[in-house]
C-alpha cells in the first residue's frame, strides 16, 4: 500500500520433495541443500525472468509412496510451482509421476535409478543419474570378475529400487556363471536380521549383495559381524552415503558399493560446488547433491529460456536439454528422460570413508 517506487518482485517456485524426516532424512536434506544453493546463486545473479524471484518449496515424502502422491498433488495445486526436483526414492518418483504428468510439471530426479519409471511413458519425468539396468549388471560384473565371487546370496528391501536392482544383479551374475544360494527380502524399518543372517552364515557365500538403503544396510553389516559372518558385502548406491559409515562404524570397513555416477569429489567441474556446499552446510555432502544441483540448474536454465511462467513451456525446454554443462559433466536427456551420462563407479569403505576403486567395467 505504501510502496512507492520499485515493485516487489513476484515469485515462482521450484518444488523439492524427498524424505526430510525419518531414517533416510540425510538424503532428502542433501537434495534440499543442493537446491537451496542453486536457487540462491540464481537469485543473486539477477532475475531469471524480469520481475520474478525464485523460491524453493520443500516437502517431505518420508520415502512413503502415498505421501509422495499427496505432496505431488500439493505442488500441482500451487500455480507458482513451475518444476520439481524429486523424488529421492524410486518408489516415490514412480507413484508421483502420474500427478506431474497430468499437471505438465517437469520432474527431474537426481537419484531415482529404477529403469521402470522412464519406461512408462511419462513425458514429464527426467533424471540426472544413471539407471539400475546399467548399475546392476555392472555390479555383477565387478563381483564376478574382480571379487571372484562364485557363490552369492542376494538380499533386497522389497522397494521398487531395492528389488529392482537385486533382481537385475541376480539375473546377470547367474548369466556370468556364479551360483545364487538364495534371494530373500527384508522389510524396511525392521531392526533384527539375525535369523536371516544366521541362515546365510550356514550357507557360506563368498559375497552378499544388498539391494536397499543405508539404514538397513548398516544394521545388516553390523549384525553379520556380530554373528561372525565373514562374507564380502556389496551394495548398490543406496548405501553409498556417509550415514552408512556413521551407523555401521568399524563394521563398514571393506564393504563395496556401486554408485550411479562417478566420484564427484575428484571431478574438476565439481570442485567449486563442493567448496560452497561444505562452507554453507558444514557436514559431509551426500552422494546425490551434485546431481540435484545440476537438476536444479537445468530447470533454472529452462525457465530462463522459456521466459515465461508457464509449465508446459518450461517442460519443453527441459526436454531438449543437450550437453548441459553441470558439475557432473555434460548432461543430455534422451527421449525417455534418462541421462546420457551412464557411468557406474565402484567404491569401498576404507578408513571410515568411501574410496573410489574404479569404474565397474575396468
Amino acid at each position, binding site marked *: 500500500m505504501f510502496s512507492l517506487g520499485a515493485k516487489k518482485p513476484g515469485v515462482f517456485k521450484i518444488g523439492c520433495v524427498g524424505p526430510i524426516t525419518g531414517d533416510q532424512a540425510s538424503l532428502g536434506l542433501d537434495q534440499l541443500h543442493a537446491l537451496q544453493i542453486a536457487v540462491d546463486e540464481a537469485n543473486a545473479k539477477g532475475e531469471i525472468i524480469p520481475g520474478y524471484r525464485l523460491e524453493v518449496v520443500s516437502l517431505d515424502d518420508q520415502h512413503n509412496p*502415498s505421501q509422495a*502422491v499427496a505432496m505431488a498433488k500439493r505442488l*500441482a495445486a500451487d500455480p507458482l510451482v513451475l518444476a520439481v526436483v524429486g523424488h529421492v526414492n524410486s*518408489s516415490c518418483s514412480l*507413484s508421483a509421476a*502420474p500427478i506431474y504428468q*497430468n499437471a505438465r510439471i517437469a520432474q527431474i530426479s537426481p537419484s531415482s535409478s529404477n529403469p521402470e519409471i522412464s519406461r512408462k511413458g511419462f513425458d514429464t519425468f527426467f533424471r540426472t543419474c544413471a539407471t539400475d539396468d546399467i548399475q546392476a549388471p555392472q555390479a555383477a560384473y565387478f563381483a564376478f570378475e574382480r571379487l571372484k565371487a562364485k557363490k552369492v546370496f542376494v538380499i533386497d528391501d522389497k522397494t521398487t529400487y531395492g*528389488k529392482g536392482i537385486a533382481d537385475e544383479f541376480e539375473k546377470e551374475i547367474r548369466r556370468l556363471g556364479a551360483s545364487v544360494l538364495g534371494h530373500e527380502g527384508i*522389510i524396511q524399518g525392521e531392526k533384527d536380521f539375525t535369523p536371516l543372517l544366521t541362515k546365510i552364515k550356514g550357507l557360506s557365500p563368498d559375497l552378499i549383495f544388498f539391494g536397499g538403503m543405508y539404514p538397513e544396510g548398516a544394521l545388516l553389516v553390523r549384525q553379520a559381524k556380530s554373528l561372525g559372518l565373514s562374507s564380502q558385502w556389496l551394495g548398490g548406491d543406496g548405501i553409498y552415503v556417509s550415514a552408512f559409515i556413521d551407523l555401521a562404524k568399524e563394521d563398514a570397513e571393506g564393504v563395496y558399493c556401486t554408485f550411479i555416477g562417478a566420484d564427484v569429489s575428484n571431478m574438476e567441474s565439481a570442485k567449486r560446488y563442493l567448496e560452497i556446499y561444505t562452507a554453507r552446510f558444514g557436514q559431509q555432502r551426500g552422494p546425490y547433491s551434485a546431481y540435484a544441483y545440476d537438476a536444479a540448474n537445468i530447470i533454472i536454465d529452462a525457465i530462463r529460456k522459456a521466459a515465461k511462467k508457464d509449465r508446459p513451456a518450461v517442460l519443453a525446454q527441459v526436454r531438449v536439454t543437450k550437453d548441459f554443462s553441470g558439475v557432473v559433466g555434460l548432461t543430455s536427456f534422451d527421449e525417455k528422460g534418462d541421462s546420457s551420462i551412464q557411468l557406474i563407479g565402484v567404491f569401498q569403505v576404507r578408513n571410515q570413508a568411501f574410496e573410489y576403486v574404479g569404474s565397474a567395467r575396468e
Partner: protein
Amino acid sequence: MNKKALFVFLIFLAFPLFDRNQYHLDVLVNAGIYAILVLGLNVITGYCGLLNLGYAAFFAAGAYTYALLNLNWGWSFWVSLPACAACAGALGLLFGSCALRLRGDYLAVVTLGFGEITRIALNNLDSLTGGPNGLSVKHPVIGFAGKGLDFGINSLPYYYLTLSVIMVVAMITSRLSLSRLGRAWIAIKEDEVAAACMGINTGKLKLFAFCIGCAIAGVAGWLFAGKQGFVSPESFDFVTSVMIAAMLVLGGIGSISGSIAGAVALTVIPEVLQPLQQYRMFLFGAVMIVMMLFRPQGLLGGKRILEELKPETERIRQEEDEVLSEDLRQ
C-alpha cells in the same frame, strides 16, 4: 432427516460455490472419506459396543479390491463398488466369526492383530499387491461411447461424490439404529445376558453389525483409491485405525452427526494448523484422553451414551455377566 441435518447438508452442498480452492476441497474430501469410515465404525463400536482396532484393514480391503479389479481386469470405478463393499464385508465376516466370541480388551487386541496381519500381508505379497511400492489405479470416469468426464485430480467431482455417499451411508445407519435390529444391538451392548434371555441371537447380530461396519469401510476404501489414484499399505496401518476411533470418540460414540463432526474436526484442524503438523499424534492422543476423562459421550453424543460410559460402581456384576454369558453363548 431432521431440519438441522438438512441445513448442514445444504451448507456443504453450496460450499464449492464460494470456495473453489483445490487444496481446501481436497482436505474436505479427505474429511468426507474419514466421515464414512467413522460412520462405519460407529455401527460396530457405537451401536454394538465392539471395539475394532484393526478397522483400517477393511478400509484397505475396499481400496485394494478396486485397484486389483481395475488393473487386472479393467473394471471401471463404478462397477467395482459392490465388489469393494462385498469384499470388505466378507473379510469382516471371516474375522468377526473368529473374534466376536471375545470381549472388551481381548476383542480389541485380536482385531488389532488382524489389522496388522492384513497390512503386513499386503506389504509382503508384492507380486499380487505391489508390496510397499503400491499400485497406481485409474481415476473414475463417467463416460458414454468414448466421450466422458475423467475425474482426474480435480477435487470438485470427488467432493460431490463423497457428499452423496456420506448422505446415503448416514441414512442407512440412521434407519438401522431406529429399527428393531438397532434396538436389539443396543440391548446387546447394554446387557448381553439379558438380551439373550429375551431371545435375541446375540452372536449372529453382533456379526451382522460387524460386517455392515466393515462393508462401509470398504466403500470408503473404494472412494479413497479412486480419488488418490494410488494405494499402498502405509495408508492402512494401526495409526489410521486409531485415528478413526479417535474421531468417533470426539464426535460421540453412537451418534451419526457426531461421527461426521469428529471426522471433519480431526481432519481439518491438523491441516489448518500446518506449522503444528508434527503435533498431529499428540492431538489425537490428547483428544482421546480428554474426552474419556471429561466428556465420554463426545461432542454430540446423546444422554444414553453418557449413561453407558459412566463409571460403573459394580464391576463384579459385569464379571458375573461374562461368566454367565459364557454358558449362554450361541
